[in-house]
């Protein structure tokens, strides 16, 4: 992750562009949508241009769109059906363009800044320290705890005769609920123990209690 010179400015620009794209009128109340489409086009091109300057940028763009569009369609389709008959297609297209452009911009912002850049940006924008400190601590153990959860699931899968971590609520509800409870409770205790060690280490290095 290349460091961004002014993370506060970059974050503000990214979030602002995302909000702008997400809040432009989509013709739900009969407003003209041509200006919105022009703006979405420009913003999407800008997001893609930023993304293309990075390795894996095209993949990031494809990933965020593939992830977002089914959800967007699920929310947009009923709203488009409720629009007057002649405007259904245009409302659907506008809602999808709005959601798609916003998610592209958000994805570009995240890809440009990365987790450390986002934390630095929030600090620069004077978001309350109580919130940003917790976010930084979260990002520090996010990957580790995710790996831990995956390892526990793999172990359960290996022990289970059918090769699944849980039998399923439909077939064996008691076993599933019990097994799930033990796994997640153990994960929680590991997370808390890890927090204690990290906190001790932080104080040992001279951090304020």
């Amino acid at each position, binding site marked *: 992750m290349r460091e961004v010179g002014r993370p506060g400015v970059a974050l503000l620009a990214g*979030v602002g562009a*995302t*909000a702008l*794209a*997400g809040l432009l009128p989509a013709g*739900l*109340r009969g407003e003209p949508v041509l200006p919105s489409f022009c703006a979405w086009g420009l913003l999407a091109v800008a997001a893609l241009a930023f993304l293309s300057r990075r390795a894996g940028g095209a993949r990031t763009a494809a990933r*965020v769109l593939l*992830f*977002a569009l089914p959800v*967007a369609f699920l*929310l*947009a389709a*009923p*709203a488009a059906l*409720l*629009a007057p008959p002649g405007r259904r297609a245009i409302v659907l297209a506008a*809602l999808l363009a*709005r*959601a798609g*452009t916003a*998610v592209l911009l958000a*994805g570009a912002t*995240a890809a440009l800044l990365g987790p450390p850049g986002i934390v630095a940006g929030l600090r620069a924008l004077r978001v309350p320290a109580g*919130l940003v400190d*917790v*976010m*930084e*601590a*979260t990002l*520090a*153990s*996010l990957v*580790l*705890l*995710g790996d*831990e*959860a*995956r390892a526990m699931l793999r172990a359960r899968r290996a022990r289970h005769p059918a090769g*699944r971590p849980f039998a*399923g*609520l*439909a077939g064996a509800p008691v076993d*599933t*609920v019990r097994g*799930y*409870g033990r*796994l*997640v*409770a153990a*994960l*929680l*205790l590991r*997370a*808390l123990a*890890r*927090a*204690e060690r*990290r*906190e001790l280490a932080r104080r040992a290095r001279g951090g304020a209690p």
Partner: protein
Amino acid sequence: MHIPDGFVTAPVAAGTWLAAGALLAGGLATARRREEPAPATMLGSLAAFIFAAQMINVPVAPGTSGHLVGATLVALLVGPGRGMLVMAVVLAIQALLFQDGGITALGANVLDMGAAGCLVGWGVASLVSRGSDSPRARLAGAVLGAFLATLVGATLVALWLSLSGLYPLGGILPLVLVTHAAIGVLEAALTGAVLVVLLRWRPDLPAAGTASPAGERWFALAGTLLGVALLLAAFAAPFASSLPDGLEAVAERLGFAARERVVLPGPLADYGVPALARHAGLATAVAGVLGTALAAVLGWLIGRGLPGAGERIHR
């Protein structure tokens, strides 16, 4: 569910951001009077745990699976005020880094999943156990609380989307409530499953007691009251009028929903909608009552082996 960008309008986005910020600030101000300090490392670890726990999917029926949201669980561990902070951080990271949920919709998502989950979940748990140290009552309350919190969150999602002019509230509300009655039962079962193990393995964790300063308690109980009132209104709305827009009428009177009503085409316009809505209202009521009963039974079943008030855990 996470509302993405592009589905809330500017007034709704601004309103929900403000409300979420105010609730977070209020919750934290009341939680600050707790005796034991919670370092950011601990809250962050808890937020990372919620992330990891949300990756663990449980097969529900062939083809569908679900996962924990975890707000009620977190609120029971660290109190409702800090619980909201943890959930807000989880949702903010999901929005900023993973594009799961929108940035303009972050306020709405924090209210639906964070605030509703923490305040209603914790509040119901504390009301059911009435401040006693009975792990059994605490667990039963948490299970019921997790269920009701899911329904309150779903009602709020419906409210934001209809205030944004996407659908009429009366149309989306039954749909959202019926599906979330099922999702809520799952959340209740998973919350109970984790909590019962925690109460057995580590009865010393704060989840076993209600140690919260009075201010935080009242804050959470007020939030719970508001949430449950909203839920009752959502369930009662279809029966109150032929067009099930009680909440919408309230919203219009308050001046936020000055949008023309969506006109349905064709034969639906005259008679279809009220009749449909009445059926939908009935389905919603049945789902709500069944779900609540199921959550209560689950709470009792899961907590059967736990000690009641005044009993001790034998190890």
